[in-house]
C-alpha cells in the first residue's frame, strides 16, 4: 500500500517546487494561464481514456465539465459546513462532488449511447452536451443565461496551484495504473476489435461505460477547478466548441499517450496567449486563424499527433538512450 503513494508524492513535491518558482517569478496573468493549462491537462487526459484508449469518440465532454463547474459554484457559495480555517476540506469535497455528479451524468449518457459507433456516437454525445448546456440556460437558481458569478477562489495562486497539481496527479496516476491493469487491456481490446474482444469474454459494453464514467468524473473535476479559477461561469463557457477543443488536445498529443495529452494541453492553452503580442502589432486578431492553420497542417504533416501512441518515457528510451 505504501509504495502506491511513493511516486505520486515525489511528483507532487516536484510540481510544488515548480509552482513556487512560478509564484515568485511571474505575474498574475501568467499564473492564471498556468492554472488554465492545468485544467486542460486534466480534461485532455480524461478524454484520452475514452477517445485514445477505448476508441470511443465522445464530443460531449464540455457538458460533464459544466456539471462539475456548476456543482462546485453552487455548493461553495451556498453550503458552509466547515469553519473558515478548514475551508480547504470543504473545497476538496465539493470538487469531488462535482466529479461524482459528472460521473453519474456520464453513466446516464453512456449507457444508451455507447452502443453506437464512430460518428454516430460523436453526434449523440455532442447532442447530450448541448442538452446539458440548454438545461443550464433554463435553470434560474444557477443564473440561467446570466451565469454564475462570485465563485470563491481557492485562495492564493500557490494554494490554487497545489489543488490543481494534486488533481492532475490523481488523474494521471489513476489512468496510468488502470491502463497497466487487466481492465486497461480490456479498454484497448474494445478499441482494437470489439467483436474479437466480446468473443474472448470481455464485456465490451461494461468496459465502455466504465471508461466513460471514469472519464466524465475527471472532466467534472476539471470543470470544478475551472469554476474556482475563473470565479465566473455561464453556459456559453461550455459549448460544443469546448468539447472539440478537448478532442483536438487528445489528437494533437497522440491518441493513447498521456504525456502527449499534457504537452498538447500546454500548447493549445498557451499558444493563443503567446500570439497575443502579434495582435498588438498588427491590430487584428490573427491568433485563432494561425491556430486553425497550425491544426490543419499538423493533421496533414504529423497525423499521429506529437507523441503517437508513445509516452514521454518511451520516446526517451527510443531516441535518447539509443544514441548514447
Amino acid at each position, binding site marked *: *500500500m505504501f*509504495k*502506491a503513494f511513493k511516486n505520486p508524492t515525489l511528483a507532487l513535491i516536484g510540481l510544488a517546487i515548480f509552482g513556487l518558482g512560478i509564484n515568485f517569478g511571474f505575474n498574475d496573468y501568467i499564473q492564471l494561464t498556468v492554472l488554465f493549462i492545468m485544467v486542460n491537462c486534466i480534461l485532455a487526459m480524461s478524454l484520452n481514456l475514452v477517445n485514445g484508449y477505448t476508441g470511443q469518440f465522445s464530443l460531449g465532454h464540455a457538458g460533464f465539465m459544466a456539471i462539475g463547474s456548476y456543482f462546485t459554484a453552487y455548493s461553495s457559495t451556498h453550503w458552509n459546513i466547515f469553519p473558515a480555517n478548514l475551508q480547504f476540506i470543504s473545497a476538496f469535497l465539493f470538487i469531488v462532488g462535482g466529479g461524482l455528479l459528472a460521473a453519474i451524468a456520464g453513466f446516464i449518457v453512456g449507457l444508451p449511447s455507447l452502443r453506437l459507433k464512430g460518428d454516430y456516437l460523436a453526434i449523440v454525445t455532442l447532442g447530450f452536451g448541448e442538452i446539458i448546456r440548454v438545461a443550464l440556460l433554463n435553470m434560474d437558481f444557477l443564473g440561467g443565461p446570466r451565469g454564475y458569478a462570485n465563485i470563491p477562489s481557492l485562495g492564493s495562486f500557490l494554494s490554487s496551484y497545489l489543488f490543481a497539481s494534486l488533481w492532475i496527479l490523481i488523474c494521471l*496516476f*489513476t489512468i496510468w*495504473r*488502470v491502463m*497497466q*491493469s*487487466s*481492465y*486497461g*487491456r*480490456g479498454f*484497448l*481490446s474494445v478499441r*482494437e*476489435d470489439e*467483436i*474479437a*474482444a*466480446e*468473443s*474472448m*469474454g*470481455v*464485456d*465490451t459494453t461494461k468496459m465502455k461505460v*466504465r471508461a466513460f464514467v471514469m472519464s466524465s468524473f475527471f472532466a467534472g473535476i476539471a470543470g470544478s477547478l475551472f469554476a474556482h479559477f475563473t470565479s465566473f461561469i455561464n453556459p456559453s463557457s461550455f459549448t460544443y466548441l469546448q468539447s472539440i477543443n478537448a478532442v483536438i488536445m487528445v489528437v494533437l498529443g497522440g491518441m493513447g499517450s498521456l504525456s502527449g495529452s499534457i504537452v498538447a494541453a500546454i500548447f493549445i492553452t498557451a499558444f493563443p496567449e503567446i500570439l497575443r503580442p502579434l495582435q498588438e502589432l498588427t491590430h487584428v486578431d490573427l491568433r485563432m486563424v494561425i491556430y486553425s492553420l497550425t491544426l490543419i497542417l499538423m493533421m496533414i504533416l504529423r497525423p499521429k499527433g506529437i507523441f503517437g*501512441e508513445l509516452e514521454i518515457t518511451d520516446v526517451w528510451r527510443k531516441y535518447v538512450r539509443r544514441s548514447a
Partner: protein
Amino acid sequence: MSDVLLEAKNITMQFGGLKAVDSLAFKIHKGQLAGLIGPNGAGKTTVFNMLTGVYQPTEGEVILEGQSIKGLKPFQISQRGIARTFQNIRLFKKLSVLDNVLIATHQHVKYSLLNSLLLTKSFTESEKNQKEKAMDLLKIFSLESKANELSSSLPYGQQRKLEIVRALATDPKIILLDEPAAGMNHSETHQLMDTIAKIREDFKLTVLLIEHDMKLVMGICENIFVLDHGMKIEEGQPAKIQNSKKVIEAYLGIEEA
C-alpha cells in the same frame, strides 16, 4: 457414448430473404474432434457465429452442457466455455502478442479497479499469474520469443497460431477453429494438426473445426458434418463422408441432364 457437450437444435439464420443456415441440428460429444466442411458459401462461418453469439439464430437454440445459451451475448458464451478463432484473423493488431493473450484471460481476473490503483498484493500477484499462464500458452506454439512484438508484425501463419493461443487462454471447454490451416503450406499444416491433437489431449478439449484441406480433415476428425446451402447433407466418420454421393455432388455440382 460419451455425454453431449454442445448441441445445435434446428438453428436457422435468415438474412432478409436468404436462409444462410436452415434448421441445422448436430451434437458434439465431450472430447470429440469434429469437423464442419462444405463448399464455399455453405454457411459454415455463420454456424460459428451462431454458436458464439455473434449472431442470434432466427430460430432454434444452442445447448451447452444441457443449458440453452439462447440470448446470451458473445462474452457470456465465452465465459461459459466456448472459444473461437476467426477465419479472417481478428487479432488486436496494435497490441503486443502477450497483450493479445492477456486480454483473453481477463474474464478470470478477480481483483477490482481499486486494487490496480493501490497496487495491492492481489493485483500484482494476479498480474504475475496471468503473464505466466500466457507465456506458457505461447510456448506451446513457439511464440514466446515474440511476446513483446506487435501482433500485426507476425507472419501470417503465426498470426493464425496466436489466434488459437488467444482462444485457449479463455480456458474453454470447446474450441471452434475457423480454417486454422488457411494459407499454410503442407508441412506447416501437418505441424499444426499435431499441435491441435496435442492441446486437445493436454487441455481435455473438445474441438470443432472448419477446414478446406480435405486430407487434413479426413486425417484427424472423428466426426464430420457436411453443410451445403445452409443444410446438413451428411454426417459421419471420414470413411462414410468420402464415399457419400451427396457430398461429392455438393462439391462437384450435379451434371444437368
